[in-house]
């Protein structure tokens, strides 16, 4: 979080820090709010439905794999053939932004419209305690939701399908949960920024969901469009041309945080994914063809591969949060 240069206050010794009091109250509010229940249900359904339809497929895969080492993570990777639902990590990638925005879009502006902000700020707390506390509370609530969903899926796998995770799989799964929390906190910070900038909560929500639609649904379309404009390919183009177009669209797509998250998720959850991107030269492609079968990466190799993605996501989160923070500190108390 952004460093705050404030003097040590001797009077606060032995008391709870202001942000902690704010966070505790906000967290309690989140847990009893309707949106928490709704989002929990949505994510719960999203986790159970593909599992239910795919459990037969997983069971047959599990019996074929001799040491069944990837079977547990397959719970998060399978997508059922019967219904058009993406697998768990793709689904979380798309729904998590909604979760982040939903928990933060009205954080500051509702305090303004309800007339509680001047009262809150006239208590002996620093002004940034309000932003920090609200961010922490949102993060805690979302972490809780994610852990419950992951727990339900794992429990389903263990109890219904009898798949017990190996240590490596547990580590990978935890790494993915941390990555997902980072992914959600980016959107939480974005929602917080909107709540500071936009005075009406409804407008902030609309903007937040608009950006989410743009990124989640139309993102890939826009990427192909831009790449097509920059490097048009004739229908009978050479393979070099086709590959360079792929390289270009990959580069453009990585501007979108969703791409970063999905690439990193794929690597973390699937040890047999050994590159974050598709090959873009013929040499790479041939190499990839040779390696593709049977190659498995250890966790630290996978982690090394997604490290730049994690840093980029973290940087985006930090920028959003810092912007919200600075803006809020400079805003007048009165609307």
């Amino acid at each position, binding site marked *: 979080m952004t460093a705050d240069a404030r003097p040590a206050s001797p*009077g*606060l010794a032995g*008391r709870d820090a202001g942000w902690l009091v704010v966070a505790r109250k906000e967290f309690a509010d989140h847990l009893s709010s309707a949106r928490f229940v709704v989002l929990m249900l949505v994510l719960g359904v999203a986790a159970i439905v593909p599992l239910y339809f795919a459990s037969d497929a997983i069971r047959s895969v599990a019996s074929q794999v001799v040491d069944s080492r990837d079977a547990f993570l397959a719970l998060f990777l399978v997508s059922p053939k019967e219904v058009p639902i993406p697998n768990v990590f793709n689904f979380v990638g798309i729904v998590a932004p909604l979760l982040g925005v939903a928990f933060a879009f009205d954080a500051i502006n509702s305090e303004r419209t309800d007339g*509680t902000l*001047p*009262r809150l700020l*006239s*208590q002996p707390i620093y002004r940034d305690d309000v932003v920090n506390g609200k961010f922490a509370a949102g993060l805690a609530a979302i972490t809780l939701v994610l852990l419950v969903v992951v727990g339900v899926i794992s429990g389903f796998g263990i109890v219904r399908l009898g798949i017990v995770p190996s240590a490596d799989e547990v580590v990978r799964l935890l790494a993915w949960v941390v990555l997902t929390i980072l992914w959600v906190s980016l959107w939480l910070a974005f929602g917080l920024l909107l709540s500071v900038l936009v005075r009406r909560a409804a407008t902030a929500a609309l903007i937040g969901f608009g950006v989410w639609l743009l990124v989640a649904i139309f993102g890939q379309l826009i990427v192909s469009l831009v790449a097509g404009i920059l490097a048009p390919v004739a229908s009978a183009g050479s393979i070099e041309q086709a590959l360079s177009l792929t390289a270009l669209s990959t580069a453009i797509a990585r501007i979108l945080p969703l791409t970063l998250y999905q690439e990193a998720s794929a690597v973390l959850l699937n040890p047999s994914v050994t590159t974050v991107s598709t090959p873009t030269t013929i040499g790479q492609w041939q190499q990839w063809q040779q390696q593709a079968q049977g190659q498995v990466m250890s966790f630290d190799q996978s982690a090394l591969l997604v490290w730049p993605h994690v840093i980029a996501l973290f940087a985006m989160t930090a920028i959003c949060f810092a912007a919200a923070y600075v803006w809020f500190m400079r805003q007048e*108390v*009165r609307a």
Partner: protein
Amino acid sequence: MTDVAPARPSRRRRSSPVADPVAASAPIRTRALTKRYGDIVAVDALDLEVRAGEIFGLLGQNGAGKTTTILMLLGLTEPSGGAARVIGLDPARRPLEVKRRVGYLPDSVGFYGDLTGRENLRYTARLNGLTNEETEGQIEHVLEQVGLVGRADTATDTYSRGMLQRLGIADALLKSPDVLILDEPTTSIDPIGVVEILDLLRTLVRERGTTILLSSHLLSQVQSVCDRVGIFAAGRLIGVGTVAELAERFGDGAAHLEVTVAADEGDAVGPDPEAALRAIEHVESVSWDPAAAVWRASVRPASESGRVREAILRAAVEQGLRLTSLRAIAPSLDEIYRIAVAGMSRSGFTTEVGS
């Protein structure tokens, strides 16, 4: 004290605030406090002093700069110039200590609608670092003070505006403040509620020695409770003093008396009250108010009011005037305010009454 001082430059306080005993003990004082929003000057070189244990009324229309001044006193907005001291501290630099000891009721105060009154107060108590044992007793105490015990456990969504206002006062009292700053405390409270609130404020001053600064645009409502008032217009303090002092300073120079005379009963005919009153020196005019059944006499200059009252009593004895009551009518603050603001727009002066 009662003398009307002409415009007094604030040189005295600016030179050495600590050397001045009054300024040193004043819980709230500002020197040339200024707040600009772009080209607009919201508060213009304000010199204000609120003494320990008094109720000071900051009076002015909406947009006169009252709330901006209050926000600067709490360190919630940064002054563009000048300085403020609250309980001896600079609120811009040490806001936490100021906010720990100053209770504040914001203009149109709000609460979290899905929480009960008690839960809202509990949150404030936690933010103030009260321990759990202290909290419940203190909450009960302040709820009793504002008369909200019966509704404390319903969600504040269901509260009326007046109840929210009372809860806001309870909220400000929760930290047992040395200084209480109330922005429009009586707005949207019913007349009986206003009396109760003003009684509560008097009690606080009497029992705890709390210093109270309140702002209002409903002048007549707060007139009775304020020890001193400051008249605020267009970001400037155009007059400070007791209501009587301000009346003398800004009034039309006349004092008003209300005289009630028993009705004539057949043979016992007294002297004509109108003639008797007119005969007294300095009585400028006498009129009969049929609705209230009283005679009204205006005295000019106002300083002769006491002597005229004496003369009326003497007339009652000497001429057999059947006097049943005699009282001086307090000048209305609304009237004073109107004249003061009109005077300011004519000449643009800044002045201070009393000391």
